[in-house]
């Protein structure tokens, strides 16, 4: 039995899924208490444990807004942020916090140290941070994913002056190139570390109390996978913005998606749009923004548009619009201003709450604007469907226009052509006909969509993406995320790199007590360049990326 809990903005949803039968054994919904997330989780667990035997529970997957909230509310900790920048864009642009120190020192794109780290400056910077009371530190170097020597030196120096509570080294966040994102990601990882770990401790205590001490805990990430709790304690930043991922993964568990498809999650005030290519969810190329700061935190490609069941209906001239504002609940739920839900009630697409209130309210609203109720309602629903369609079209175009770097990909690359739409969320069934008309594509509304997010949380598998970089002229191979560096012979090739990265990733997950399904292992990028010096081959420059593909451990049987 796997439990899935999704701590959402208003509700905390929980389910228990029986892995053998693929059926939902229990489900519940409790209000989210943002001041005390743990109490919401405990309440949901208690409810579920009233329905299933705790001994049968082997795993708990948790999607929490804890780190997100901490950042949004500024409940973060001071971080000593120490960077080695080298030449390029002025690193002063990336000053994220008071204790930000740029240290002289440089690593180039090949990973050669072109300027040594200044030990005196490093000493002074660490002392200044400690003087300000910093207890967590981020060490970030430009091109540290090619050579982490400066980040490692910073970490050593920080710990020399009295052990720090926690140090994030930039290369551990992954091998992708992007120094400003590395800085921001390392900073936020440190800033929420203590809060997150305190919470993690509390979760464990609560599980012990509930008799679930034996349960393996995984945490949902924004990229549509989960991470073992023990790893997320070191990388708490990866748990932010996991909400949309829970819903998207829920759809995968509920439906058998094979084609290029669009997922619409229509909520109260927004519709989240996700894209599937040949049945697999698309991951954002770079990473999410935290506030105005781009980061390396991978996420499913999800676009939000301000249209949902509670979105207000407006009439501007001849045009009937919906959203993006919310002016309170719908008329059917006692609100004062007509919303999309009221319009759907009026055209008979659903019967939500007090249908008569919708009809009367919308009739009065329409009359004031010399319109018939039916026309107004239909126009509002059409507007919403069309707005969603336009956004989907833009998103798909953006994906298809993404830069590529080989002639082969440019001329023969795959394009996404959506063939099916899946809708979930409150107004899903009601919007079905309008969406079908707007898109002229087959539309499916999965059953049990109401708890899809918790189902997604429960059934999502552990994922991890890592990168390998090898330079046979230097005779070195490096996997930044694992801090793994080894010497390689000049004959080292792409095949060797692909084998090594697979063994390293699977070994790493096994070590964490979370062995991965090797069939979900996937090389996502592999390239090998001849390096030439003085018109002769001097070595190979090898880059490999791999991942445990986001997916679910099984689909739900209905």
């Amino acid at each position, binding site marked *: 039995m796997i439990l899935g809990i999704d701590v959402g903005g208003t509700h905390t949803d929980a389910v228990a899924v029986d892995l053998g039968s693929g059926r939902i054994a229990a489900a519940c919904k409790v209000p989210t208490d943002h001041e005390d997330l743990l109490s919401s989780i405990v309440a949901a667990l208690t409810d579920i444990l009233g329905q299933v035997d705790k001994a049968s529970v082997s795993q708990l997957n948790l999607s929490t807004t804890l780190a997100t909230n901490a950042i949004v509310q500024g409940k973060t900790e001071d971080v000593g942020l120490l960077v080695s920048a080298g*030449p390029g*864009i*002025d690193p002063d642009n990336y000053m994220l916090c008071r204790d930000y120190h740029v240290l002289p020192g440089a690593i180039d794109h*090949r990973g050669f140290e*072109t300027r040594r780290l200044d030990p005196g400056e490093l000493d002074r910077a660490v002392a200044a941070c400690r003087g300000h009371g910093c207890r967590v530190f981020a060490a970030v170097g430009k091109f540290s994913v090619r050579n982490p020597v400066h980040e490692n030196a910073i970490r050593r120096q920080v710990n020399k002056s009295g052990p720090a509570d926690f140090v994030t080294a930039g290369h551990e966040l992954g091998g992708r190139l992007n*120094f400003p*994102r590395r800085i921001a990601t390392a900073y936020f990882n440190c800033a929420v570390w203590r809060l997150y770990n305190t919470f993690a401790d509390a979760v464990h205590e609560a599980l012990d109390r509930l008799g679930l001490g034996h349960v393996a805990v995984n945490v949902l990430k924004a990229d549509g996978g989960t991470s073992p709790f023990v790893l997320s304690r070191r990388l708490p930043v990866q748990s932010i913005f996991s909400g949309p991922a829970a819903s998207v993964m829920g759809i995968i568990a509920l439906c058998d998606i094979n084609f290029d498809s669009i997922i619409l999650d229509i909520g109260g005030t927004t519709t989240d749009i996700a894209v599937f290519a040949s049945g697999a969810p698309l991951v954002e190329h770079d990473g999410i923004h935290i506030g105005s700061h781009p980061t390396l935190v991978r996420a499913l490609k999800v676009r939000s548009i301000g249209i949902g069941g509670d979105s207000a209906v407006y009439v501007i001239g001849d045009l009937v619009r919906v959203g993006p504002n919310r002016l309170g609940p719908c008329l059917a739920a006692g609100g004062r201003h007509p919303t999309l839900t009221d319009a759907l009630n009026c055209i008979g697409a659903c019967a939500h709450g007090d249908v008569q209130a919708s009809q009367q309210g919308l009739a009065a609203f329409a009359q004031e604007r010399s319109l018939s109720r039916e026309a107004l309602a239909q126009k509002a629903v059409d507007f919403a469907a069309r707005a969603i369609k336009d956004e989907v079209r833009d998103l798909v175009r953006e994906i298809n226009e993404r830069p590529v770097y080989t002639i082969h990909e440019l001329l023969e690359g795959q394009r996404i052509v959506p063939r099916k739409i899946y809708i979930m969320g409150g107004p899903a069934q009601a919007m079905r006909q309008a969406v079908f008309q707007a898109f002229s594509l087959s539309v499916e509304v999965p059953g049990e969509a109401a708890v899809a997010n918790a189902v997604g949380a429960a059934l999502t598998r552990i994922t991890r993406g890592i990168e390998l970089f090898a330079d046979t002229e230097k005779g070195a191979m490096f996997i930044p995320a694992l801090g793994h560096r080894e010497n390689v012979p000049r004959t080292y090739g792409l095949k060797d790199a692909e084998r090594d990265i697979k063994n390293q990733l699977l070994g790493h997950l096994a070590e964490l007590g979370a062995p991965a399904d090797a069939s979900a292992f996937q090389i996502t990028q592999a390239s090998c*360049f*001849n390096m*030439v010096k003085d018109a002769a081959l001097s070595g190979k420059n090898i880059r490999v990326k791999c991942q445990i593909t986001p997916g679910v451990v099984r689909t739900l049987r209905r």
Partner: protein
Amino acid sequence: MLKAGKRLGVVFFPAYDWSISPTHPEREERLLYTQDQLKEEGLFDTEGVREYKPKVASREDVERVHFCFPDVDAVATRSHLISAGGAMTAAGLVMEGERDRAFALVRPPGHHAMKVVHGSRGFCNINIEAVMIEWVRENYGPKRIAVVDTDCHHGDGTQDIYWHDPDVLFISLHQDGRTLYPGTGFPRDCGGPKAMGRTVNIPLPPGTADEGFLMVMERVVMPILEDFKPELVINSAGQDNHFSDPITNMNFSAQGYARLSEMLKPDIAVLEGGYSIQGALPYVNLGICLAMAGLDYSCVREPQYDPKALAQEPRLSEYIKELCDLVPGVYFHPPAESPDGFEAKGWFVRHKDIFYDTDGINEAQTESLLLCDHCRGLVKYESRSSKNPPCLGLDLPIKACDRCRDMAYKILEESQIKGGYRYLQLINRKDRDYLRYGF
């Protein structure tokens, strides 16, 4: 957060699956470290800076410019069409107002490709700037355009294509042809009889450093541009003037290139050569991108930059100063007669022997300009090479007069009847009539 003062589009296409040969300077690895640097700097996260995918130039786009013998497919591969398409994409971004400026960071280069093409010279097959310019003119009307070529090699291909076009000002800064391929590009070469002074060559001595380049920009290039008042400024942004370039002898730096871009303010920059792929390109390309976006570039510095070792020798500074006194005259007071060629029966004729070093082809060409009082004149290219029998190309400009047009069709008809040419091609920009025979 960084915010660009100018909205910059970067069309980045490194063609990671294409090379001339595995160890050739024009190989897969060429833009690898540039991409690493731009990605690591987070350039495309900067507000106002965006990366774009190139379109692919069509055969028509190439045949609007070139006489390719035997045909386009024989001289240009897909990589060349993408490279030219990348330049067109960059121009489109600017012409449509989506971006203030654009940089086509593409390979392979094109500035050694001339009007007639039998193969590859100086790693170039088709002239990507010219394909872009004529695409702009085809879609956005005739334009006054300035091309400033800052590649270390003389842009002899671009010069050849626009030799007779008074509406395209071509300025080339390059290492003196007496010391470097292709061996041309002297101040006396200043354009055909109808476009005198619209070709400006500035040969610089080996060892020229930031000081010399920037002096030429300030004293020669900028005053000429100010007078010419182009509607579009294009920079053929070759990067082989860099002090670390393996095939040239100059001392220009990333700071210098960035400052040059800041002065020139090109609407569109197009990468040309530059083969110090680790020591120069990552820094020079970053510097150019930042300068074009109106961002601070003061911290962009090559690790091996040594201001003392790269200081310009005083005697070079003296020489360049004299050059700066002399060269503006080419534009402001061009000579009365074109230096190269002779008049015969109402035509202005030049003979050219062209060597395609990359492909080892020799071409003998006669270029004849119909001297006309009403327009800049029809141009006729008679060409044969070690690869192709005699071929004929007729180039009728956009603003051609009726007499020149009639003459073009008359020659075409006579040549078909008489035979003698294996391939015939007409580029009629005036009526957009493009004809090919014998292909």
